[in-house]
């Protein structure tokens, strides 16, 4: 039988690890990285995990602990994390060409059977190379399926003595391991599945593995069956090598401070549309539907307000100016005076491939048009000389809604003015 080997690579505390590469003072200290706007914890060092601060914790609830344990608090720096992620992924690819980049800090690798006899050594080598070349520690788990690889990675992270790698294939104690894995930690089990399974006394990956096939088929359908087979070592979730274009593109932000004026909101919405349409063009799509939404601050007293407005575009487009014009029209419909707005966003949907636009007598093609050329030129300039070198004037310059990022580190790897300074 043609046996498959899957490995899941997961960077340890990725955002914190990126910060530590360029700031050695953070080593061994409790560190957290906050979400855009400094709202919630999105990455924790092991020291912080041990203190019991959960992922996603809102900052204001933990101010006392931060003072007490002298936790280093950093704003997120996605430019830096993106570049470090690229480096890690490129190294992984050089050591295993069958790679599926799953997220900014996770990737699946797929190996052929013939490498089985030295897979343990090989994943150790991968781990050492990534650590040495980039300074980023990673954990690697290996299994016969993606689901088992994911479980192996969890163990590699948890058990210190494993030094970050674990291979579950061919072990006699697989069932013992699965007994210690809660069902919520199985890949693909959501909260609704979890609730249902617990009601039926399925608590661990082991319990799930030995469920009757027909029972799973009846109650959990195909998704549940796939998990059952995967836990039994039969691969059902294939590698996805090609990045699928997204079906919707959403850009939304919480504002650094509440906004009241229409003008400020207009600038924010225009900026979000600029970002979204850039992403739209990058994946070579056109949008047919544009939605704009605004909401009030749920943590403050006063009227609760949430409104969304949607427009269908008769001519699918990726033209920033046109989308902004339509977006501002929609914003005008939902804007209400006297509300303190905390958040706003835009969603582009009904996306089609730019080559598949249906043409009619009245609707001209976006592809090959002057507007397409203009957009391409703008994208090229922004790519060459830096983000936002050219942007629509309507977006404003002061940006009163701008993210609150008090302690963002420098763009050490992408801006000459911000590279690391070393004392000589």
């Amino acid at each position: 039988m043609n046996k498959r080997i899957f490995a899941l690579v997961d960077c340890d505390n990725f955002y914190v690890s990126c910060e530590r590469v360029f700031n050695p003072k953070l080593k061994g200290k409790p560190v957290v990285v906050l979400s855009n706007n400094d709202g919630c914890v999105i990455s924790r060092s092991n020291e912080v995990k041990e203190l019991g601060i959960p992922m996603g914790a809102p900052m204001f609830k933990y101010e006392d602990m931060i003072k007490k344990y002298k936790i280093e608090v950093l704003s997120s720096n996605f430019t830096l994390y993106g570049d470090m992620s690229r480096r890690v992924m490129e190294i992984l690819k050089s050591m295993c060409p069958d790679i599926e980049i799953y997220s900014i800090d996770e990737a699946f690798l797929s190996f052929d059977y013939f490498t089985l006899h030295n897979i343990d050594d090989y994943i150790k080598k991968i781990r050492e190379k990534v650590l040495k070349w980039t300074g980023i520690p990673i954990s690697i788990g290996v299994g016969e399926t993606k689901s088992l690889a994911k479980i192996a990675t969890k163990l590699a992270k948890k058990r210190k003595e494993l030094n970050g790698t674990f291979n579950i294939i061919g072990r006699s104690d697989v069932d013992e391991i699965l007994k210690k894995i809660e069902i919520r930690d199985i890949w693909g089990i959501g909260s609704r599945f979890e609730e249902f399974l617990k009601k039926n006394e399925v608590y661990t990956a082991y319990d799930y593995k030995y469920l009757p096939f027909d029972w799973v088929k009846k109650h959990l359908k195909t998704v549940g069956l796939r998990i059952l087979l995967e836990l039994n070592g039969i691969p059902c979730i294939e590698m996805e090598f090609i990045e699928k274009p997204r079906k919707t593109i959403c850009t939304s932000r919480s504002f650094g401070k509440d906004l009241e004026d229409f003008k400020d909101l207009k600038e924010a919405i225009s900026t979000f549309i600029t970002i979204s349409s850039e992403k739209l063009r990058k994946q070579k799509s056109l949008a047919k539907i544009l939605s704009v939404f605004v909401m009030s601050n749920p943590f403050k007293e006063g009227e609760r307000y949430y409104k969304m407005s949607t427009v269908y575009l008769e001519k699918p487009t990726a033209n920033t100016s046109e989308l902004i014009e339509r977006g501002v029209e929609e914003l005008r419909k939902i804007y209400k005076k006297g509300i303190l707005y905390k958040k706003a966003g835009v969603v582009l949907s009904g996306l089609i491939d730019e080559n598949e636009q249906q043409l009619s007598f009245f609707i001209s093609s976006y592809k090959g048009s002057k507007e397409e050329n203009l957009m391409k030129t703008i994208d090229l300039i922004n790519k060459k000389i830096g983000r936002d070198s050219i942007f629509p004037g309507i977006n404003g310059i002061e940006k009163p809604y701008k993210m609150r990022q008090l302690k963002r580190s420098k763009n050490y790897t992408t801006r000459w003015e911000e590279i690391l300074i070393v004392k000589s």
Partner: protein
Amino acid sequence: MGRKKKKIKLPLYSSKVSAGFPSPADDFIDKTLDLNDLVIKHPQATFFVRVSGNSMINAGIKDGDILVVDKSLEPVEGKIVIANVEGEFVLKRIRKKNGKLYLFPENSDFNPIEIKEGMECEIWGVVTYVIHKTI
């Protein structure tokens, strides 16, 4: 009147047609030189840093210079390295003397750092090139 000027559309050729003799160099054109090819051997492991201070001046590294640093290389004796000593980045040369390990400056105004047991010292990367502005 109201007569419009008739526009004649001409095709635009993207390749140039030259009238004279073809250049004798045409068959020998190579790609242009890219400085990255020369100074970056391991792109994923290469970082740039800026120097502050003159402790390495005799090695040709001056205040304000930009260094190419390769994290993938082995930090062996004689190499100039970026090291993290007690939470601080320093730029020095690795030296061994009488069985002791040092981070050595290249300027007599500065003192070498002896690496002792229990000290926090980690080599961050090996310096491979110096970019020094001369104008």
